[in-house]
């Protein structure tokens, strides 16, 4: 396998595992912060949606046409969740 191809696969794999989990964690956290219901309901809602984000992100990392698009999309989704989390502040 050529070096460029190896790098491409390694970068996508990293995004599909560590990156996808980080996105799932951020989505779970951000949604739980935003959810208007009770604390317990917000936790369950954020967690279920966060879990769904992980396979979606993993598939995206391998489906995207270029490595730049793959990581760009992941960073965009993670960035939105981070901004929401940051804007919502810490739990009181």
């Amino acid at each position: 396998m050529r070096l460029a191809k190896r790098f491409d696969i390694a970068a996508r794999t990293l995004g599909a595992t560590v990156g996808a989990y980080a996105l799932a964690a951020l989505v779970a956290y951000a949604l739980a912060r935003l959810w208007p219901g009770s604390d317990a309901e917000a936790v369950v809602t954020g967690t279920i949606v966060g879990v769904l984000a992980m396979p979606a992100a993993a598939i995206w990392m391998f489906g995207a046409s270029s490595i730049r698009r793959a990581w760009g999309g992941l960073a965009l989704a993670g960035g939105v969740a981070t901004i929401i989390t940051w804007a919502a502040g810490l739990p009181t």
Partner: protein
Amino acid sequence: MAWLHGWAGLALGWLVYAIALSGTATVFKGELGDWMRPEIVGRAGQVEAVAAALDYLAKAAPASPDWYLSAPNARSSATIASYEAPRADGGRNYRLVALDPITGRPDGIRDTLGGEFLYRFHFELQLPYPWGRLLASAAGMMLLVTLISGIVTHRRIFADFFTLRPGKGKRSWLDAHNVLGVVAMPFHLMIALTGVLSLVALTLPWAASARYGDDMARYVAEAAPGLVAPAATGRAAPPADVRMMLRDAVSRFDGGTIGQVAVIHPGDAAAVLRVTRSDGDQLAYGAATSTYAMATGRLVSFYAEDRPAKRTYDILYGLHMGRFTPVLAHWLYFLSGLALSATIATGLILWTQSRDPARTGHRFVSRITVGIVAGMPLAIAAFLWANRLLSPTLAGRAEAEVSLFFLVLAAAVLYAVAMPPRRGWAWLMVLCGATWLMLPLASAIATGRGLFAGGALGGDRLFVAADLLFLVLGGAGIAIAVVTARHKPPAPRRRRAAA
């Protein structure tokens, strides 16, 4: 995407296969427990059985901080108790004991984990907490990604579904992989997703920290308001009428039955009796919980889940557990689980057949694959054989049954590594098939129950059904061995002009 499907499938494929197969067997956890404890023949009502078990625990485990009981039901006739007991090395850990529903005592019942072993192995993989659960979660997520990328890869998915080319070697494996994968695809996706969700409190705790910060006590209390657990006082107090509390609980269950019973701080003045409704007649996992002050018999709390998000989660969890009533549903879960295991197995075999066998790494992977695919069903059969062959009074026999499971699995893998894959596969499958086929006979000799003990005429339905299932599984094992051994690999392909 095909690349992802192939490699992601292989990376944790062995593990996912072992998880899928043990999960499939776990569909019949209760029935398996009854089959593995042939000494229990009596039946008792739930209230009487639980009261008898609590009497026994008061004498056998007064120092345990809590007792947990599964009440007997239509699928399992023993009361299963678990309590903290001192270990030989000075430590303490929870012990699982089956109690006779009539006497409430474990006397005369062979020591076995029953259906609990494969159930635990399914998500803990016999590894210390939390590593087994983390690994099982990773495997479940990998299965989910593999399934989705598999759907994307197989663009001709519906056309492929009607394609089966038997006797064509690799192409037949591919067709079998596609048919088995597609026919139960909704089940495969559901079981992988809900399996990951069932362990999510451990793997994705970030939403909880988003709302509760470090206040985990408040989180636990609000996540499960039914689980009332007051602090112990240190003062002793005798229990009030347990039967009355149990009957009161049942009267609040809308025609439902008792599922689990827990006593927190038994013997203490603050002890509570927690009675949870059986979830065997509903989709959702977990059900209404009625809690009583043990010393007075007074109702402390009654909680039935009605919060929409939590209820959604409980139903997703319940879909994974597949406990809902009709027996037909259990068989559909069992067959779909077999289909999933076979999809994974054929996928693993395809991967090895598509690679250059001259490379040492590939050869090693193929042989281990053979050992695990054939070794897992063989090891489960060995576990059941051990249950029949080991003396019922042997000390540590529950652990011996489990050891035999792992010894046989390890031996199968070692044998497969030493053999050319085709020969190893054929012999292991023959052995596996024969082990399942002979099991009804061994069981009849050891217990005097089942198909070969005149059970077909009597009312011993569970034992006869189990024997029939073992015969079918054994027959299938032999058939697979014969079909794959008969197949001759095609001669090296000659170059042909395009037709």
